[in-house]
């Protein structure tokens, strides 16, 4: 402890050097005066007494020096001195400093940005204490396509598990299927809500910042109209008013009392809810009927000491118990391998969060950083060479090697820290733009906010220092390795060139060429992948297509047959009629959802009466679209057989369906689907048409075939009315007028209008983001490499001017002189591309699984990139080569003397 406090004392003194030295001086003066007084007492004259004391004492400053020198503060003082000198030095060469800091700002900034995105998604996705013990609880159907993945759960199954399972300290049920209207006087905000059982709060284990969360007593007393706000909603809509707790708000047509506000960054449920309300099970959900609707999430917190494996065993035995009392369920369980399962939350997220995509982008960013460091190392070597003389002089004047190394290290570290600071600013700006640009919500289901935080700050600082020291070490070794004595002598003359410096630089440049080759390959591969993907299309025409979507909430429009007939369909017809009459609208139709939309996909099972399933075949599922006539034409979906739905396919006519091509191919391979039937919710529907396949959800979510049904023959499946339009004007220009039409009919509607091509961009983000980022990195890499290469060649020409002049004077042809430089460039290119190509194949194997399209030519891409790199290298070499050949021996050799 004492040693530590001594260290503390010393550090304190070092930091407050001035004050400490002032105090010391004061103390010494006091001593001096005491000494003088004593002399006086012995009978000396005051002046003489003082003088003698001063003589005996000696020079005051000398003591301070002596004390200062042996404190820890000495080292610290040196460090400060070196830091100040480094700053002065960096200021003195603004070009070098500017290039280096810009390079670092981009390279470190790219890393900080990606880390800022990756960290909350992959490393800390759950803002809960002990997140490893939080698991997803649900159904597992191993024989279905999703395999061992834990699926959603039904209310009754949840209640049984909650009552019987002993492995959890708490379980929670999350109903994230809804959105609600929050009424704010004259207008409403429509927002995601999660209805959760009180257990979910216990599982999460996070305390609210204001008020409280709801507990079982709240629900037992029948007072279930409570709401807990998210931090975002509280700030943006309620102005961070702490008095909101206790206030009553209107959600849909119900009054809810706000009881608490959760902290920023907290999330519970995958739909990024803005607020949470209690989930109460209806009588129906508590009966056997409650087993059917397996559409909800359940989470559980494992008891201390219980492993995931143990929990899985317990749940499997619970399922066996359920089967023992429900013989009617045997057949289905047999066919699907059904059981209950648990999985750590992280599994669920990393599967959806495209973890390997983020990881590979981070690796690419690290490569860019490596390249930037190589570049700066090259620059440092050049500068180190220019300063050999300074170093030699310092050495001659008595600076120890340690001092010189420390000074150089501080210089590099200062440079990198400055770069890191600018990089943080770059990252802060990028983190504002990137999440929206890349639709991060898609791949970040838990919706933690992305932004500059302390972790990024420390990580960037650490990486800056680390890379700074690593980058600096080679040039430092170079600068201090040699015996500096001879340097002083030789430097006073003109040297021709330094072989070892050239070798060091060549290694750096070849390394840069190799790294940029890898990044170039990645850019080409991801670019071709995206082109192929967009080329094959998504089954719809995105050009001049607009989508305007509204929710028709059940509390105002009703639901079921009556709601559909009385409110929903009349609204759709009225709106469609007005939209069609808008100038600029070529044609329009309405559906209950649109292709490429990122809303949680809702799949339905259907039957094909004459279809004989092959063993192991999965049950037929499809997206069910409720569309009006003209839908296919409006979206450019090709009608392959039969006819479109028509207004006469109404409630009084026989039920009909149009199927997508996949259904026709899979279930009617050798017969005419037209006139055949599919069963949907127990009703036979005649197939009247076959249309082209479409991509219905973002690529990252997979796809399914589609059944198109007549909106007037079925109750609405959901509350969405999506109007699709083909426009003559640019579709973005139509947004305002379409929105106006819809809100004129119903002012409380929140209209989301966007172009179909914009939706497509969102749907392919997992494929387009790598392409954009890899492209950006490749451009940066090529620029940096070109800069590095040019620097090396130009410097070698400049410093070898005398050599060249002599050669030319002795009769070397201009061609052979420029050939020399070009050969040097070619040698660097050869070395760099060879290493680069070797590095490309493992890199390709790494990114291959992330790409949506196959490409036979992919393995050859490194060769293409190598050819491009070689061409670039020669182009860059050409400039110094030309300058070398233009050297005028008469001028150079005369100037020399």
């Amino acid at each position, binding site marked *: 402890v004492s040693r530590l406090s*001594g260290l503390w004392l010393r550090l304190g003194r070092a930091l407050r050097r001035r004050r400490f030295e002032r105090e010391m001086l004061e*103390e010494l003066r006091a001593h001096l005066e005491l*000494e003088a007084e004593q002399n006086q007492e012995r009978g000396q004259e005051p002046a003489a007494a003082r003088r003698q004391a001063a003589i005996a004492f000696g020079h005051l400053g000398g003591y301070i020096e002596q*004390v200062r020198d*042996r404190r820890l503060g000495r080292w610290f003082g040196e460090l400060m001195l070196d830091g100040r000198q480094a700053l002065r030095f960096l200021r003195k060469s603004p070009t070098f400093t500017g290039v280096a800091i810009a390079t670092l700002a981009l390279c470190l900034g790219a890393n900080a940005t990606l880390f800022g995105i990756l960290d909350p998604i992959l490393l800390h996705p759950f803002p809960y204490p002990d997140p490893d013990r939080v698991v997803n609880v649900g159904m597992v159907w191993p024989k279905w396509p999703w395999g061992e993945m834990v699926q959603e759960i039904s209310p009754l199954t949840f209640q049984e598990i909650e009552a019987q399972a002993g492995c959890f300290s708490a379980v929670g049920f999350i109903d994230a299927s809804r959105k609600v209207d929050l009424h704010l006087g004259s207008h409403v905000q429509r927002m995601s809500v999660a209805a959760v059982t009180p257990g979910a709060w216990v599982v999460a284990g996070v305390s609210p910042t204001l008020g409280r969360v709801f507990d079982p007593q709240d629900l037992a007393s029948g007072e279930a109209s409570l709401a807990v706000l998210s931090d975002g909603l509280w700030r943006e809509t309620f102005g961070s008013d702490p008095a909101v707790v206790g206030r009553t708000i209107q959600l849909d047509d119900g009054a809810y009392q706000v009881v608490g506000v959760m902290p920023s960054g907290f999330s519970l449920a995958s739909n990024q809810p803005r607020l949470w309300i209690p989930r109460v099970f209806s009588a129906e959900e508590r009966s056997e009927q409650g087993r059917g609707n397996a559409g909800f999430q359940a989470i559980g917190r494992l008891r201390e000491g219980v492993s995931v494996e143990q929990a899985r065993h317990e749940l499997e035995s619970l399922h066996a118990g359920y089967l023992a009392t429900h013989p009617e369920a045997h057949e289905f369980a047999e066919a699907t391998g059904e059981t209950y399962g648990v999985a750590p939350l992280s599994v669920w997220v990393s599967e959806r969060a495209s973890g390997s995509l983020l990881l590979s982008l981070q690796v690419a960013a690290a490569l860019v950083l490596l390249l930037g460091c190589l570049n700066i190392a090259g620059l440092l070597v050049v500068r180190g060479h220019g300063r050999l003389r300074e170093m030699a002089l310092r050495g001659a004047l008595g600076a120890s090697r340690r001092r010189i190394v420390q000074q150089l290290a501080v210089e590099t570290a200062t440079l990198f820290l400055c770069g890191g600071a600018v990089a943080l600013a770059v990252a802060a700006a990028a983190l504002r733009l990137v999440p929206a640009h890349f639709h991060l919500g898609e791949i970040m289901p838990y919706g933690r906010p992305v932004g500059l935080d302390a972790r990024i700050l420390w990580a960037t600082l650490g990486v800056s220092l680390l890379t700074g020291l690593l980058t600096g070490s080679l040039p430092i070794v170079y600068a201090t390795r040699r015996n500096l004595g001879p340097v002083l002598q030789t430097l006073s003359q003109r040297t021709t060139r330094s072989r070892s410096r050239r070798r060091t630089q060549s290694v750096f440049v070849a390394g840069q060429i190799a790294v940029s080759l890898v990044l170039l390959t990645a850019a080409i591969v991801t670019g071709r992948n995206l082109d192929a993907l967009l080329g094959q299309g998504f089954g719809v025409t995105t050009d001049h297509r607009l989508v305007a979507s509204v929710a028709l909430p059940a509390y105002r429009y009703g639901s079921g047959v009556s709601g559909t007939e009385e409110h929903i369909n009349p609204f759709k017809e009225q709106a469609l009629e007005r939209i069609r009459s808008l100038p600029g609208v070529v044609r329009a139709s309405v559906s209950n959802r649109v292709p490429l939309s990122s809303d949680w996909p809702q799949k339905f099972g259907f039957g094909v009466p004459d279809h004989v399933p092959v063993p192991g075949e999965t049950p037929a599922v499809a997206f069910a679209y409720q569309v009006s006539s003209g839908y296919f034409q409006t979206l450019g979906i090709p009608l392959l057989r039969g006819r479109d739905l028509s207004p006469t396919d109404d409630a009084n006519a026989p039920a009909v369906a149009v199927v997508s091509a996949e259904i026709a191919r899979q279930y009617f391979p050798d017969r005419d689907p037209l006139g055949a039937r599919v069963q949907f919710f127990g009703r036979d529907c005649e197939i009247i048409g076959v249309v082209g396949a479409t991509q219905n959800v973002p690529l990252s979510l997979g796809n399914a075939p589609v059944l198109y049904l007549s909106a007037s023959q079925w109750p609405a499946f959901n509350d969405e009315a999506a109007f699709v339009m083909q426009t003559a004007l640019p579709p973005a220009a139509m947004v305002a007028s379409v929105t106006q039409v819809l809100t004129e009919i119903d002012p409380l509607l929140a209209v989301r209008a966007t172009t179909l091509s914009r939706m497509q961009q969102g749907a392919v983000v997992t494929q387009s983001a790598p392409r954009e980022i890899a492209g950006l990195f490749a451009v940066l890499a090529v620029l940096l490499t070109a800069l590095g290469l040019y620097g090396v060649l130009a410097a070698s020409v400049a410093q070898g001017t005398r050599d060249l002049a002599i050669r030319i004077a002795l009769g070397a042809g201009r061609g052979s002189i420029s050939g020399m430089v070009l050969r040097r460039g070619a040698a660097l290119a050869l070395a760099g591309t060879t290493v680069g190509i070797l590095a490309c194949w493992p890199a390709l194997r790494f990114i291959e699984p992330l790409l949506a399209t196959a490409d036979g030519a992919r393995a050859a891409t490194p060769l293409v990139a190598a050819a491009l790199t070689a061409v670039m290298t020669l182009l860059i070499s050409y400039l110094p080569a030309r300058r070398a050949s233009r050297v005028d021996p008469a001028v150079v050799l005369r100037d020399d003397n």
Partner: protein
Amino acid sequence: MAKEKHDLLQGTLDMLILKALQLAPMHGFGVAARIRQISQDALRVEQGSLYPALYRLEEQGWIKASWGISEKNRKARFYEITKLGQKQLQRETAHWERLSLAINQVLGSTAESLS
């Protein structure tokens, strides 16, 4: 005044300072005066050694310093020995006794006593 100077071994000075402070807390001048007084002017601590030693001992945690008012009503920095310093003094005293005994034996030896 005899200008005869006795260079003190490093560590010996530390010991003397600690000993002086063990008697009573005092300022730097007092420490020098006390050592001179006890040694009857045989040991004179140069200020050039005294203050670096005081700061070193303070950094070791063996003494601690605080500003106070001297007997002559002047602001002065007073040093006092800490518990750790007491222990250190004990150690050094023991060490010194062993060392000086050994040296005395060497110096006191005669040719006869060794044969």
